[in-house]
């Protein structure tokens, strides 16, 4: 027994040593040298990013292109799943090992600003005309109100309204066009709804993005540009929230119980809802799920009273860690994955590329997988789209906006009453953001 135990312990020790063998990465110090040409850049950088599926694959492929262009730079890659990545990133930034290049989104709104390098001097030094190089609308939100550029875009995604042609045909309602308004949207949603109970077919699913669209649909906004003041009590903002409250009351949008009965993409794919606000990021999944179940198409989200299409965009880009010891290589990486045409072509398979050349040649000629639906509208839709409003430093206030949305769409309160209840709390949340930043 003793011999057995001794052998077991030795075995465990060996297994532990083998199992725990890993590699820690370090960056080489390399002074920035503006006169160096791209090909002469060398050293080591660590790239920290996240995602999954084809989207992540495209980021890994983009890094391969960078390595081909800059053979002197060794790139250590940290690619992780997106779920709970904020916790990891905060810990890594605090420990100083988050990498030289870090994925970032403009909807973080100042959350990690202190960690990021201002990229303006690099852009000026390289004489980059971003307006000519970047797809229109892809760049919003990367520059702070004080002019600091926190990152460069790589991809973006906006929304289209996917609609089930069979349900429209059955209801005798014409398909929507890119010129429709939110009043028409509400009317159409009611017209194409039918059935009762478990057989109910809804006009529009209860998609999470509707809450973000609501304040803007009649030209309102949830807060002002520098997020110092909530504008929930603006009549146009209230009217936007009320539109969705009314849709639930009319049975054109699922109530809370119905919304919880199945995932919303499943509801659309199963023919239980006529319309679905579909992000570009989920287009191929939706297409696969719908399969041959029914014919469908896409249309731009409706216009606000001023004639501007109301859309929300999600953007992804890269920032440079202020603590990077190889800023030249880090900048070269950021520039490549943002502006290089070959990289843009790669990204086109999964998202809208930041590189204008790729967006206007490769992306616009693509179709949603297994369909003949063109991607062109996603490019047009991005131009006026609003950066996702509830991220980063705004998230605490965003939770209160979400509660207000629930009061209207779940509790059936009027938007005006809900706004009265939440306006002061939301204002306090904004005040505390700015106090903390001082």
């Amino acid at each position, binding site marked *: 027994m003793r011999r057995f135990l001794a052998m077991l312990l030795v075995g465990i020790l060996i297994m532990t040593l083998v199992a725990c063998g*890993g590699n820690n990465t370090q960056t080489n110090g390399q002074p920035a040298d503006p006169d160096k040409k791209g090909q002469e850049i060398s050293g080591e950088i660590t790239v920290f990013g996240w995602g999954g*599926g084809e989207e992540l694959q495209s980021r890994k492929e983009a890094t391969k292109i960078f390595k081909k262009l800059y053979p002197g730079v060794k790139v250590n890659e940290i690619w992780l*799943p997106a779920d*709970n990545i904020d916790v990891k990133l905060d810990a890594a930034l605090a420990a100083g090992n988050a990498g030289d290049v870090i994925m970032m989104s403009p909807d973080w709104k100042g959350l990690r600003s202190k960690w990021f390098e201002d990229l303006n001097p690099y852009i000026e030094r390289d004489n980059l005309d971003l307006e000519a190089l970047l797809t229109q609308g892809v760049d919003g939100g990367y520059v702070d109100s004080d002019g600091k550029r926190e990152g460069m875009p790589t991809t973006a995604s906006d929304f289209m309204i996917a609609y089930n042609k069979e349900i429209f045909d059955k209801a005798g309602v014409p398909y929507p066009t890119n010129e429709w308004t939110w009043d028409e949207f509400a009317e159409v949603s009611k017209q194409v709804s039918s059935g009762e109970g478990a057989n109910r077919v809804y006009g529009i699913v209860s998609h999470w993005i509707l809450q973000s669209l609501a304040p803007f649909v009649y030209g309102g906004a949830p807060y002002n540009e520098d997020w110092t003041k909530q504008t929930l009590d603006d009549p146009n903002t209230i009217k936007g929230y009320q539109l969705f409250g009314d849709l639930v009351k009319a049975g054109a949008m699922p109530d809370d119980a119905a919304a919880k009965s199945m995932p919303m*993409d499943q509801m659309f794919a199963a023919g239980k809802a006529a319309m679905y606000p579909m992000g570009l990021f989920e287009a191929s999944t939706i297409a*696969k799920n719908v399969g041959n*179940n029914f014919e469908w198409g896409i249309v731009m989200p409706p216009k606000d009273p001023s004639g501007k299409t109301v859309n929300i965009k999600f953007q992804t880009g890269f920032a440079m860690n202020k603590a990077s010891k190889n800023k030249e290589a880090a900048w070269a990486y950021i520039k490549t994955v943002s502006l290089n045409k070959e990289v843009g072509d790669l990204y086109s398979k999964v998202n809208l590329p930041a590189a204008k050349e790729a967006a206007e040649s490769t992306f616009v000629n693509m179709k949603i997988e297994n369909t003949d639906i063109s991607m062109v509208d996603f490019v047009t839709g991005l131009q006026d789209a609003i950066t996702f409003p509830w991220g980063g430093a705004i998230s605490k206030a965003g939770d209160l906006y979400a509660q207000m949305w629930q009061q209207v769409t779940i509790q059936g309160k009027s938007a005006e009453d809900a706004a009265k209840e939440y306006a002061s709390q939301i204002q306090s949340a904004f005040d505390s953001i700015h106090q903390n930043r001082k």
Partner: protein
Amino acid sequence: MDTYYKSKRTGDLIRYSLSYVVLIICAGIFIFPFLWMLSTAFKIPSEAYTLPPKLFPKTFTLDNFIEGWKYADFTRYTLNTLTVTLLATLGTVLSASFVAYGFARFKSRYNNLLFTAVLATLMLPSQVTLVPTYLLFTKMGWLDTLKPLIVPSFFGGGAFNIFLLRQFFRSIPKDLDEAAYIDGANAFQIYYKILLPAIKPALITVALMSITFHWNDYMSPLIYLNSDQNFTLAIGLQFFQNSFGSSQIQMLMAVSLITVIPVLILFFVGQRHFVQGITMTGIKG
């Protein structure tokens, strides 16, 4: 007399029938997600979303398993998960039983205070300790290795396990220890030769809980690991989801099914001891 037995038998029959009906309904509710996973794993994408949901796929496919497994290095992830789970479980069982033995059998002025301090750690949310432990492991050079996932298990094995095993130790008469002392055994020999065999059901319970926890743990590997070669299954499965939560559900279900099988087998093998362990420690609620 006959009438009495007849009515008693009828009463029993009704009672048992009702119990079984309730149990079958509950079992059906609990097993449904598993059946849905099983069925989705064999479906083509468009079939996964048909309504009403169909348990048996119209077009049966194994592609989800083949493509899903090739999607990332799941063989390596499985090996890493096995390594972490087995070693961490060994550490948990050994160290938790050792600490629990101390609390159950040795008296000191600070015994209760120390035990309260151990239990108090249960109330500490793991998020609170995350950043400090991350910094600690970074300083130790353990980042991106499996060490942070294994080694801490050898230092106490967790407050809940210590509590569970202490309760079990306390249920064993001290006469056994005293008899062993008289026979010349020392404290370690009593722990190892007398008490450990006596608490086998509790050790198996702790081992099963530890295996399930480490097999499914997502947060710790996410925090401490960076390289694909070190990832575990819980991390690997998340790669089926893009950053907006949109996922390739069929492949996710197929690979999840494969990864859940070892835990299921283990649970069925050890469930007798597990139930015994839970019942005897009085933690069944």
